[in-house]
C-alpha cells in the first residue's frame, strides 16, 4: 500500500511541475528543457532554508517560488531573444549551468553528496511524515496549481498565449506585447516548478543534483507531450501514465538495474512514437510540427 501511495505522491509532484511546463511549452509554444533546473532550484532553496535557517515549510515554499520566479524572469529575457531551435539550445545551456552549479558549489549545495535531513512540513504540531498525510498535502497543492493554471489558460491571458504560439507576428499586429507575455509565463512556470521542487525535497528529505538533470527536464516535457500540449487535463493523464510506466516494469520481472535504464529508453521511444503518430498527444490541441514564426 505504501508503495502505491508513494507513486501517487510522485505523480502529484510531477503533475505540478509538468502543468507549469505546459504553460510555457504547450500553450505558448516555447519548448524549454530547463524546467528541471527550476524544479531543482526550488528544492535546494526549500532544503537550505529549512536546514540552515530553520524556516518552516510554509514560509520556505513561497520564498522558493518567488526567488525561482525571479530567476526565471532574469534568464528569460536573454533567452527569449532567440526563436525555435535556438531557444531549445539556450534552455539546454541554462539547464547545464544549473546542474553544474548544484554539483560544484559545494559550500552551499554539498555537491554530489547532496543535502540530507531536510525537515518535513509541520502544521499546528502535525508532522506530515506518513504517506497518507503527504499524499493529502501534495494533492492539495496539485489541485490548487491545476485550478490556477486553468484560470490562466481560460482567461483572455491564455488566448494571447495561444495566439503567440500559433503566430507571433499576427499577435503583435493585434497589439499584443509578445515579449511581456513570454517573460511572465516563463517566470510563473519557474515559480510553480519551485513549489513542486519544495514538495519533493520535503518529501524525500534528501536531494542531490541527479534529480534535477536534463533527463528530468525531458521527462517533464514528455509528460506534457504525451498528455497533450496545450491541455491542462492532458497533463494529468500524462503525469499518471509516465510516472506509473516504469513502475509497471518492475512487475514484468526486470531486475531494478535493467529497469532503470529501460525507463529512459521507453521515454525516448515514447516521444519518438508520439511525434510520428500522434503529435498532439493524448488530449492536446497543439501540433508541434505546425508552427509558424
Amino acid at each position: 500500500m505504501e508503495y502505491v501511495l508513494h507513486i501517487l505522491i510522485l505523480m502529484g509532484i510531477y503533475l505540478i511541475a509538468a502543468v507549469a511546463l505546459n504553460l510555457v511549452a504547450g500553450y505558448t509554444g516555447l519548448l524549454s528543457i530547463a524546467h528541471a533546473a527550476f524544479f531543482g532550484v526550488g528544492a535546494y532553496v526549500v532544503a537550505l532554508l529549512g536546514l540552515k535557517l530553520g524556516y518552516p515549510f510554509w514560509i520556505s515554499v513561497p520564498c522558493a517560488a518567488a526567488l525561482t520566479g525571479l530567476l526565471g524572469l532574469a534568464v528569460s529575457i536573454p533567452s527569449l531573444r532567440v526563436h525555435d531551435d535556438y531557444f531549445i539550445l539556450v534552455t539546454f545551456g541554462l539547464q547545464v549551468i544549473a546542474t553544474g552549479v548544484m554539483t560544484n558549489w559545494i559550500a552551499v549545495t554539498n555537491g554530489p553528496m547532496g543535502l540530507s535531513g531536510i525537515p518535513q512540513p509541520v502544521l499546528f504540531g502535525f508532522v506530515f511524515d506518513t504517506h497518507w498525510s503527504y499524499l493529502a498535502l501534495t494533492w492539495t497543492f496539485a489541485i490548487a496549481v491545476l485550478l490556477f493554471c486553468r484560470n490562466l489558460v481560460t482567461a483572455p491571458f491564455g488566448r494571447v498565449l495561444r495566439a503567440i504560439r500559433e503566430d507571433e507576428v499576427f499577435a503583435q499586429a493585434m497589439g499584443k506585447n509578445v515579449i511581456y507575455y513570454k517573460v511572465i509565463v516563463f517566470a510563473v512556470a519557474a515559480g510553480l516548478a519551485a513549489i513542486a521542487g519544495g514538495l519533493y525535497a520535503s518529501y524525500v528529505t534528501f536531494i542531490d543534483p541527479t534529480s534535477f538533470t536534463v533527463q528530468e527536464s525531458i521527462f517533464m516535457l514528455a509528460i506534457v507531450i504525451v498528455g497533450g500540449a496545450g491541455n491542462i487535463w492532458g497533463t494529468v493523464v500524462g503525469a499518471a501514465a509516465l510516472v506509473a510506466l516504469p513502475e509497471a516494469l518492475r512487475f514484468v520481472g526486470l531486475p531494478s538495474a535493467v529497469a532503470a535504464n529501460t525507463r529512459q529508453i521507453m521515454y525516448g521511444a515514447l516521444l519518438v512514437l508520439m511525434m510520428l503518430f500522434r503529435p498532439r498527444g493524448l488530449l492536446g490541441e497543439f501540433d508541434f510540427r505546425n508552427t509558424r514564426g
Partner: protein
Amino acid sequence: MTLKQDIIEIRGLTKHFDGVLAVSELDLSVPYGLVTAIIGPNGAGKTTLFHMITGFLRPDKGSIHFKGNDLVHCAPYRVARLGIARTFQDLRLIRQMTLLDNVLLATSTSECEGLLSSLRRGYLWRVESAKRKKAVEWLEFVGLQDNSGSLAGELSYGQQKLLSLACCLATGAELLLLDEPVAGVSPTTTERLLEYLAQLPSLGRTVLFIEHNLDAVRSVADRVVVMDEGTKIAEGSWDEVSAASNVLEAYLA
C-alpha cells in the same frame, strides 16, 4: 491639402536590403476618412512600406508620423495600440482558434489580458460577455456570423480574408493597412470585400491598401498612389493617375 487632414505623414523614408534600395526618399500623406490605394509593379516597395509603418521593419532614414506620434521607433504592438491595424499578404490568423476567438483577441485590451486579471473571474465574465457581443457584430458585418464557432483554419481563402478584415475592424483602429485584400479571392467575395471597404469611411476609418487588381482599385479608391522602384511616381484620382504617361511606362517596362 493641409497638414491637419492627414492621418499619416511620411517624409524621406528610405530602406536598403543588402545594397538593394527597397524604398527611397518616399514622401506620402494619407488623408483622413478616405480610401487610398497603392499600386505599382512587384518590387516597388509597397509591402516594405507597410512593414515600416507598422514597426516590423526599421527604416534607414526618414520619418513616419501618425496623428502626431513618431512611429519610427515604435514596436509593432505599440503601433497597433496607437490605432493602426493591418493585414498581411500571406494572410495571418490564428487558424487553431475559432472565428469568435480571433475577433475577441483583436477586440481585447491589455487590461483584461494581464496575468492577475485572469484570477478575477467575475470581472472577466462581465468584460468578456460585452466584448463577445461586439465581436459578433463584426462577424455579422463581414457576413461570417454563422461560422463563429468554427476554426479559422477551416474557412476558405476568401472567408479568411473577410475574417482578417473583421479582426482589423475589431481592434478599433482608425487606420487600416490592407495588403492585397482581394488577391486570390473569387469574384463574388471580391465584390463583397469591396463593398465593405467602401463603407469604412462612414464608420470613421481611413483605409490604405495595396492591390494589383486594378478594377478593384478603380471601383473603391478615392485616391491612388503609384509606386515604382521605391518611390512615388504619381498620385491623385484614378482618372488622373491612369492618364499619366510615367505610370503606363512603369507598368509596361
